[in-house]
């Protein structure tokens, strides 16, 4: 491998750019270096059809002249490339107006100083080979073959070094790994099923188990029948719950959304039942841990919802300065008009088994996952989307039949308010940008507004 994987080399590169920026007149500067090797083996129709690998490094420079900010990025590390990077960022900073409320880059005391978090990197992922991923794909396919269904999916492994260094003393360095295996099984009799695993260490993922779960689900949904749309109580499996977390993080749990008046969030406002507690916690080893954000600020666990009540939102350095508080370590790479984002949402488990969750439905639906959801009304968190890969009618606490997929148009806030049971088992799954740890939940009512043909 020719990549300079040594984090010290990446930090030296960041320091080199910082020096160039200071020489070019920056009053403050921040350099983010991301260097990684990622690979993904994709399979469809029970064979590998796409198989890719990428090696790359990128530099992102935030260059300040007083309160005027320019940002430039580049993949080049040669002397001419670094010079151009600095010149471009400086030229932008020289061309823009001042940001009146610019509070400066975060200072060293906000940065991560604890060294490499052991849980953030696993050699099993960093050293994953094409043969390892192919073996995983074959294990999934074998399970599909055994059930007479067809496997589709992907197995991805990534190792990434993140360095954030700025002129106010931040030197945050971390090597992170992550891996995701997902599969959709499709049966000749119309059934489909889904399963997914996300882990820091790819060798902890059991491809056969993932393949079996999806294949069994596909067979269980064979010959689904139509169901009239309407209001039904539901049990949502973790694959569906992750969407609720993602969407609420997107529309509401960001300090910028609150500052702009577009969030549902108010401190103390009840948005969920007593059973709903959600924390953004990048230190939780159940997720994909990360020590700091893309400004190099150490991540702090933030309670978003406690027993149904809104507690806090996440901040980056700019939104924190506006509210006179400290950044919580949730900044995204500059320039970032979207504001801070909770990347590591963790929902507290409950006490119910899967059987108890389903057993509590007199007549309702068990939903495996959602597909193509989108916001219709941000302040009310009204979302539309489809069910996919396993939707079942439940009567008297028993699954009685698979049903064709349904469209829903539902306020996710109303959904949280209607949570009446939470599962004790949780899954780590891929979210919008990070990893989410979620249980299954039972919700008193869910509004389905349409149906499709499969």
């Amino acid at each position: 491998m020719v990549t300079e994987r040594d984090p010290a080399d990446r930090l030296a590169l960041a320091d080199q750019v910082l020096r160039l920026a200071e020489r070019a007149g920056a009053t403050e500067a921040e350099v983010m270096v991301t260097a990684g090797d990622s690979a993904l083996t994709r399979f469809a129709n029970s064979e590998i059809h796409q198989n890719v690998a990428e090696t790359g490094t990128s530099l992102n420079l935030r260059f300040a002249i007083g309160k005027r900010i320019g940002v430039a990025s580049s993949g080049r590390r040669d002397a001419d490339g670094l010079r151009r990077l600095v010149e471009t960022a400086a030229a932008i900073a020289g061309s823009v107006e001042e940001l009146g409320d610019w509070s400066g880059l975060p200072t060293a005391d906000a940065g991560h100083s604890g060294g490499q978090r052991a849980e953030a990197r696993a050699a099993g992922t960093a050293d994953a080979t094409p043969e390892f991923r192919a073996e995983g794909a074959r294990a999934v396919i074998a399970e599909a073959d055994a059930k007479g269904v067809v496997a589709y999916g992907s197995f991805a492994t990534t190792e990434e070094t993140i360095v954030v260094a700025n002129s106010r003393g931040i030197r945050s360095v971390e090597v992170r790994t992550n891996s995701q295996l997902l599969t959709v099984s499709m049966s000749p009799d119309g059934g489909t099923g889904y399963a997914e695993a996300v882990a820091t260490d790819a060798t902890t993922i059991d491809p056969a188990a993932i393949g079996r779960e999806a294949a069994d689900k596909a067979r269980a949904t064979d010959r689904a029948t139509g169901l009239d749309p309407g209001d039904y109580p539901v049990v949502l499996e973790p694959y569906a719950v992750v969407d609720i977390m993602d969407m609420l993080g997107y529309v509401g749990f960001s300090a910028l959304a609150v500052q702009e008046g577009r969030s549902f969030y108010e401190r103390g406002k009840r948005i969920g039942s007593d059973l709903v507690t959600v924390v953004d916690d990048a230190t939780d080893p159940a997720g994909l841990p990360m020590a700091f954000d893309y400004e190099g600020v150490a991540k702090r666990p933030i309670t978003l919802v406690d027993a149904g009540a809104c507690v806090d939102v996440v901040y980056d350095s700019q939104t924190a300065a506006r509210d006179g508080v400290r950044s919580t370590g949730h900044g995204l790479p500059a320039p970032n008009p979207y504001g801070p984002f909770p990347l590591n949402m963790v929902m507290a488990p409950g006490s119910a088994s899967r059987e108890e969750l389903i057993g509590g439905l007199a007549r309702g639906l068990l939903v495996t996952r959602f597909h193509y959801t989108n916001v219709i009304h941000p302040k009310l968190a009204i979302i539309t989307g489809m069910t996919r890969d396993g939707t079942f009618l439940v009567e008297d606490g028993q699954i009685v039949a698979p049903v064709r997929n349904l469209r829903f148009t539902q306020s996710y806030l109303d959904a949280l308010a209607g949570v009446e049971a939470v599962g004790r088992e949780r899954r780590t799954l891929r979210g919008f940008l990070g990893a989410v740890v979620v249980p299954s939940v039972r919700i008193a009512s869910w509004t389905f507004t349409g149906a499709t043909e499969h």
Partner: protein
Amino acid sequence: MRELTDRALDTAASLGATYADVRIVRRLEESIAVKSGRVEGVASGETEGLGVRVLVDGAWGFASSDQLTTAEADRIAGQAVRIARASATALRNRVQLDDRAPALGRYETPVLEDPFSIPLERKIGDLLAADTAAGSVKGVAFTESSYGAQREWKTFADSAGSFIEQVITHVGAGVETNAIEGNEHQRRSYPDAGGGWRAAGYEFIRGLELSGHAGPYAEEAVALLSAPQCPPGRRTIVLDPSQLYLQIHESCGHPTELDRVFGTEASYAGTSFLTTDKLEEGFRYGSDLVDIVADATTPGGMGTFGWDDEGVAAQAVPLVKNGIFVGYLSSRETAPRIGRLSGGAMRADGWNRIPLIRMTNINLLPKPGMSLDEIVADTDDGLYLSSNRSWSIDDRRLNFQFATEVAYEIKGGKKGRLLKNPTYTGITYDFWRSCDAVGDERSYVMLGTPNCGKGEPGQTGHVGHAVSGARFRDVQVGVGKW
């Protein structure tokens, strides 16, 4: 570049590749973000690298790197071959490509004013002026204005002897106004949600006349706060180009991607209801008025190029003719499976991604007869829906639901009062079969999106859609509880 492409191709061949292609891509990007009258972010990005794709034992492998050296070209070619051999351990059908002559040539997007040569101060000034015009309207909560430009220098070579160089330039800009009161959050966007985008130079941005249009759109955002809710019911709807283009994108563009039909996107975005038996049977996709073509030669479209990323020349491929489904977006691998040659729709998002079947310019052809205004005048009772706010469609592209920023009531052939929070839903082929009017050339305009997502790892595509507006009967509107 020849040295690098030759080196990668030679190395791949020497290691056993029966086919190889290499792409070297340099991408330059610039973006400006203005929020509520202040410049929130100006950024410039540059990336370059090479990607090598090989066939070994009938299986695909791909590797990429941002280091443009002959040593790295060797390494990447070797890695791609190793990956292909790993793919071959789970292979059931050897890949077969269509047969075609090597492609040679050069293409460049016609640009009158180079967006990267226009002084940054002028671009910022233009955007600030528009944003300020929107923000000066009483009742506006915040405004967001954006500008973006992207240029790619692409070199493609393959083991059959192709060698192509292309320079593709895209620009876009827009102004979005937000009005908030209590739980109500309304938005109006000019020229449409996400901004207007073209394969062009800065002349396109000037032509948008952002600052002249921003104010009236802002006034409408504020007016929507007190507008009545769009009521539920079965209605006649007229979609203007700013919504119709996304309807085409989601319900015709994606389902006609032949890789989806063959299941290769099943684990992520899904498959398609337009299975190959429907091509053979002449499936009625829409009414007789519906003619849809995938045209990579349309001037100004973001799906316009000289050759796709497999070296197949740009062409116009009919997808729906007189309402009948007649064709797919295809590649050199998929087209032979339906007895055709590639339609030239393979596009990659940069050097580090493989080409996938992507939309080019998916155009709903105009119909002589009525302009969009005349369609409204011809409508006794209906809704005129404009500018997308939300989109969703199922994994086979059948059940869709869209929200638009605004609905205007149509009564007696005239656009009347505003209605807020409009939504409409349907089944793709029922919807297109209900189309009873398509606008003529007078309202035909090229739109598109720079944010079309597909693939694992994810790729973002720039695609075009030329549309003129259309009318649909008996459509369900006003979905959900509000």
